[in-house]
Each structure stands twice: as C-alpha cells, then as structure tokens.
C-alpha cells in the first residue's frame, strides 16, 4: 500500500531498510539519526545503535535533536567515554554499518563536510569531520544519505573529509583501510551502489526519470543494466517516521 510522501521521507525510509536486525550501527548526525531510529522501531528491534557521544544500545524515547541528547542515555545498554567509542568499538572492528550524511559526495563515494572551495579561502565553511573520517575508514560498510544536486554530486569533491573509494578500483585495500567503504547512497532522486569503487545508479525513485538524475550528477553516470524503481514507503513506515519527527526538524 502506498501513500503520499515527500522526497526526504522516501530517502529516510529507504535508508532505514538498509539496516538489518541485529546489526551494530554507528549513527551519524542529521537524517541518519532519524533513519536508524525508524529502523529500530519498525523492522530491526535488535539493531544496536551506537552514538559517537558514547551511548551504546540507545533506545531514545524522543528523536534526539543532537547526537548527545539525554534521551540517548536513559535506558541505554551502556555509556562509555568517547575514547572507548572510537578506540574499542569503531577501531576495534565492532561496527557493521556507519551511517553518514554528506554535503558533497563524488563519483567514488568520497565525502566532503569541510569546505566548498579552497581550504584556505572557502566559499562556504562546513562543520568539518566530526567522527565521519574514521567511520568512513573503519566501519565494515557505510550507508550515505545526501540531497542530490549537480553541485553536491561533483566528479571530485573539493575536499576529501571522509574517504570513499578514493580514485576507485582497489585504492582502499592498497592503503590498508580496514572498512569496506560505501555500499549504498540514498538521495532524494535514487539509490546508488558501487562497482569497482564507482558510484552506480541502481534504482530510481518513483516518478524520477533517468534524465533528471543525470542532470544532477557532475560526471558520466554509470547505470546498472537492472535499473529498478525504489520501493516507496508504506503507510506504517510513514506513520512511525512522522511520529518520530513530529516537529519536522529533519523532514522539513
């Protein structure tokens, strides 16, 4: 059963489905936060949410505005220092999925959340890495949600904050990066996987044409031969999602 939804709602619901029950997810700020909490309340009750703030097994009663909200602590399994979160959990190889949002993402899945323009004289100064750099390097796989425009999808990002597949191919393995890199990018237009370290369109959201997607990509886009249509959110997903973000802080 389908229902009316916004592109952002579709993006969050599709991203949430990417999380399997029982997995360990390192939750990033913004839409990933919403997607992880949606998964937890719907199909993945045993999903272990780990926040860089130190909350392990968080079950927030309200969707946290920040990733250091007190609701992440109340009822969680454990609270540890940030040194432990990054050293023991992330660097120790305990994280199945890193869940990130990017300002800019490029052909090879490299993420930029640092600057638009040159570093010394930026046109726009963005927040910086936070934990994204090490999440991108260390998590077994990385799921990215991003709003897609030609500007936010350049062939090469202005600044690599968090490495994806670098120049493509086996660059990650050659550099000895422990994690597997990005496995899925969900935008407001479609979903992308990676083939030989290159972003490849795997599904179009309902009503979105291939031409429209290509117009919002800054390079010659690779498209899978089995191009599918993204399954839209069902009523129950939308109900839970809208309950989660009642003030539409993330959903707009």
């Amino acid at each position, binding site marked *: 059963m389908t229902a009316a939804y916004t592109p952002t709602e579709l993006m969050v619901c599709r991203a949430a489905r990417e999380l399997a029950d029982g997995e360990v997810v390192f939750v990033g700020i913004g839409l990933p936060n919403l997607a992880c909490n949606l998964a937890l309340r719907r199909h993945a009750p045993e999903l272990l949410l780990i926040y860089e703030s130190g909350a392990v097994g968080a079950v927030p009663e309200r969707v946290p505005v920040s*990733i250091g*909200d*007190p609701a992440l602590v109340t009822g969680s399994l454990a609270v540890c220092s940030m040194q432990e979160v990054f050293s023991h959990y992330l660097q120790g190889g305990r994280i199945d999925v890193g869940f990130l949002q990017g300002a800019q993402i490029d052909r090879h899945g490299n993420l930029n959340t640092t600057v638009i323009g040159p570093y010394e004289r930026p046109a726009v*100064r963005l927040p910086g890495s*936070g934990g994204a750099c090490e999440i991108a*390097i260390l998590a077994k796989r990385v799921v990215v949600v991003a709003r897609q425009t030609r500007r936010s999808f350049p062939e090469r990002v202005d600044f690599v*904050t968090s*490495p994806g597949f670098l120049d493509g191919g086996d660059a*990650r393995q050659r550099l000895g990066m422990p994690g597997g890199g990005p496995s899925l990018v969900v935008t407001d237009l479609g979903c992308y996987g990676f083939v030989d370290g290159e972003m490849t369109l795997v599904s179009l959201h309902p009503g979105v044409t291939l031409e429209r997607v290509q117009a919002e990509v800054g390079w010659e886009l690779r498209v899978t031969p089995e191009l599918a249509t993204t399954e839209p959110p069902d009523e129950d997903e939308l109900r839970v999602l809208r309950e989660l973000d009642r003030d539409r802080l993330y959903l707009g």
Partner: protein
Amino acid sequence: MSADKLVSMREAVARLVRDGDTVVIEGFTHLICFAAGHEIIRQGRSDLTLCRLTPDLIYDQMIAAGCARRLVFSWAGNPGAGPLYGLRRAVEQQVPRPLELDEYSHFGMVARFAAGAAGLPFWPLRSFTGSDLPRVNGDIRTVRCPFTGEELAAVPPLRPDVAIVHVQRADRRGDAQVWGLLGVQKEAAFAAARVIVVAEEIVEESVLRADPNRTLLPGLVVDAVVHEPFGCHPSYAQGYYDRDNAFYVGWREISEDRGRLEAYLDEWVHGVPDRAAYAAKLGDRVGELRARPRVAGAVDYGY
C-alpha cells in the same frame, strides 16, 4: 594544596584563566559549562586558544566576544540547527578579529587529549588515511609500528593550560562525579595544567565514597571547585535539567546577525553579574527544563 577549594566562578576564572591561555571547556553536548564561558567573556580574557571537539554555542559566543585567537576543534556546527555564524564571521570576514583554525576529526581530538593525559609524545590511531585533513594540518602525521611495520596516523598531545569540567556533584576538594554522557572530560582534565571543576551540587566526601565507580576526577588533579547550579544552560545536566533545544534552534537567528549576537551578549552575559542572576532572568524556563526523575537502583560495594 588546600583541602577546601570552593570559590566563586568569578574568583576561579580570575585566578586560573589568563590571557593567551589554551583553554578547554569540554562536555559533548552534555555538561557544557556555559557559566564559565560567560564569566571568561565578562572578565575580558583575550588571545585564548580554545579547544573543544564541538565548539558549540559557547565558543560561538566567546569568539564573537573577541576572546579567541585560535580554535582547535573537530566539528563546528550548531548540533541539529545549522552553522555557528559567530565562528564563520571570524573565519570568513575576520570579525571581530581573525581566528586561526586547527582542525582534526573527533577521534583525532580524543587521541590528542589521551596523549596529553598519558604523558606521551603522540597517540597512534587508524584514521585520516585517504583524507585531505593531513594535507591541511601538518600535525596529523604517520608513525611506523615497531612490531608489524604498519603505518598508522599519529597526533601530538594536547596539553591545555586550563580545563573546565562541569559535573553533577563534587566535594569541596574537587572529587567529582558524573553520569550520563562522559565525552572526553577525564582525558582533558588529566592533560591540563590547571583544572576547574564546576558542580551542580556540593556534597560531603562520604557521598562520593559511597559510590566510587561514578567518580570521574579525583581532587588530586583539581585546583578550584565552583558551585554553580544550572551552570550548563542551554546545555544540560542529566538528572537535573534538559537541553534547551529551542534555544539551540533559536540561536541560528541570533548568531546570523552580528548586531543581534552582540545584543545577546550585552543582555545575557555582560548584563548579569553571575549565573544565579542569569537563571533568575530566565524565569519560568528553568522550571520547564527540570528533569523528570529516572532514578537508578543502588549497588552493593560490600565484601
């Protein structure tokens, strides 16, 4: 060192925070001591190197007030509510003065504090590979493992002159207990030359000794203790008061306009003598933010 270190915030800042110091007011979203930041602004400290993983609203205010020369950080945004415009004006337009940036990732910052606390010349970590951060920050380097030959990232210690740590409760000697998110405060305090503990409540030593696993810092590393209830607003103290999310969201509009930000500082920082007056001025909001109890069971330390 005296056993009784209890002083006012005014005295603690006057005595322990100096122009040109490297200052850390830590707390990851939780327990950010706005009261200390405001007092530093009131006392007109300048040329500070401010360090925090997330500069947050408190450093946005201190930068806009002209206290800072340099910022050491890893994520500079308003958590959940857009950019920090005071910081951006300093970086993009040198207003009210230029601000140097010294930028890491969270793990990089945590590792710097860990090295500082442990008295080591660097801390190795698996990060930064393939990132452009080492290209723009010469202090993010590599080191070869003497056992495996593997190349790892390395960062230098961060040794602040002063660390300011807000806690739920402390005794007059500075033994301090925290629950909820722990951030990087323990490492920051052990790395610092001087430490100010700011507490929601001052309790007898016996209260802390009854539950020693909850103690974050021993008085051993603490130079001054300040009793400052509601000292974190608009940040929060678990079990005491909630984060003022509406304030964080509303900060965007205030900080976006230089005049409005300065008017805010005039009214809420320079316009009040201390934290008690700030809380009184907030009025009913203080009660609205009071935490609803979720009390944990006690544990048995017997043997």
